[in-house]
């Protein structure tokens, strides 16, 4: 009786699923717009403007690489009944953080907070960084971090999030190191 609809959703996913592929520990190009150099192997699944990388499973930890987001784009989709915020190239860093935070909240998370918004280099491009925390829809605490920049009216954004216990800390150093390898092309 509990959560039967999830089965349907799963069946739908199974029907047309794209399999995970392996990301090797060498320079990777994201959406043709920037590169990063991972130091470990990741499993990757790709959607339109985002690559999701995980080692242990995306419900535990994942790094999401967005590239070339344009006006009207959403971070993700939930269902046609849930209207998510859309990106607008006129957004200042404060508003990009608001866009991310509000999207995660609309995605079903609770206690969503974006904190410590600050300037940061996205490769050689001036950008911004912030931290995240929220509870999943099941009440599990997550921490996250995000770095991004707007280049020629397009948003490039990297968001890493994982369960506060064990998983977020597990790859945090690797993610920080990888952020240091960003090169815009």
């Amino acid at each position: 009786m509990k959560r039967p609809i999830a089965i349907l959703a799963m069946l739908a996913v199974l029907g047309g699923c794209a399999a995970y592929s392996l990301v090797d520990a060498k320079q990777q190009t994201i959406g043709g717009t920037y590169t990063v150099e991972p130091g470990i192997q990741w499993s990757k699944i790709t959607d339109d403007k985002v690559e999701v990388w995980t080692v242990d499973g995306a419900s535990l930890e994942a790094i999401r690489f967005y590239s070339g987001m344009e006006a009207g784009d959403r971070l993700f989709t939930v269902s046609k009944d849930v209207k998510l915020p859309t990106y607008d190239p006129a957004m200042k860093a404060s508003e990009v953080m608001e866009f991310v935070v509000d999207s995660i909240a609309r995605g079903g998370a609770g206690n969503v907070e974006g904190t410590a918004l600050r300037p940061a280099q996205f490769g050689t491009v001036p950008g911004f960084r912030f931290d995240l925390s929220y509870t999943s829809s099941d009440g599990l605490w997550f921490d996250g971090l995000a770095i991004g920049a707007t280049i020629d009216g397009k948003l490039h954004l990297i968001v890493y999030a994982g369960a506060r216990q064990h998983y977020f800390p597990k790859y945090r150093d690797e993610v920080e190191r990888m952020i240091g390898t960003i090169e815009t092309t």
Partner: protein
Amino acid sequence: MTSARATSLLAAAALFVASCAQTGNIQKIEPGERPTIESDEAGLWMQMDRVEEDLQTSGKVVTDPDLNAYVREILCQLDTSYCADVRTYIVRNADFNASMAPNGVMIVWTGIILRAQNEAQLASVLGHELAHYIDRHSLKRWREIRSTTDAAVFFTFATGGIVGILAGFAAYDSIMSFSRDMEREADTRGLTMMRESGFDPRESAKIWQQLIEERDASDEPEKKSAFFSTHPAAKERSETLAKLAEETDNTGTTIGRERHAAVTAPFRRDWLLDELRQRDYGRFEVLLNQLIEAGMEDGELLFYRGEMHRLRGEDDDAEKAIAAYTAATGSGNAPAETYRSLGLMQWSAGRTTEARAAFETYLAAQQDAEDRAMIEHYLQQMQ
């Protein structure tokens, strides 16, 4: 094959009879009553006990003791005999909804408390939910669904259709909402409770009227709302309730506007933010106007009016946002973030002097601003 088909029809007929017999006559639950462990009702309780455990640790329950005490006090004023059987949970969700589980778990979404303008309006919601409990609507609904889906399977099967997995799933969706007749029954019992416990029953119709105004202003009025799809047409309901309320003399009844405003004041900002995140600007604007008219603190509300225009960003929204923020700052209880938003809008409009002044005011007012480094960076960029 013919004989098999005949057998199936026979079996179908037999089962149909069996399933019809199950629904039975369901009496209202007595205070303190618990179902016997062998019953189907006990199964529903068990299921909901599990849900309750999950809910308690979901991170979505508002635990503030004062707010919880306020909601419980209204519930217990409505009916002293059942109030010990009901556990109220205030859950962070922007939508207007509440729910009643068979085991006594009453969930009140913050979207309801935000929209209720006084104690009597909140009481009308709580009374309605309590009525679902007293009249055992969950059990009734479950038995109805079980027997109608059983019958449907027979019909499908006997007529040569495929008994699909999907039929079962479709049924689950309707299990979760009460029938319109049950909603009417709950409205009536709820109104009686209000009247007998001294709340002004006329407020019951008003809350529906407010909702109708919101829906009519929605950016997506055609969108199927969970609320409107499962309830008697809101207009009909509001009219019926208004008529019922006028049947007795209501002098001396409580509305309780000031107390409601005061109790909810510390939470209003969070709940408005939840609502704004839905990005239904038309509806949000009407809600703001309703709250302003109801006399809630206006600095916050004007700030959110500005936020609504800033996020919508159409036509003259930019100037309207600036006007709203400016009005908010003149009202005495505007949040410090008003200046940050004002700064962003002035900057976008190319008015850097005004933007600088606003950002500086924000930083002065918010000494521990999380985004201080970014705002200082903005100030440098503007130089």
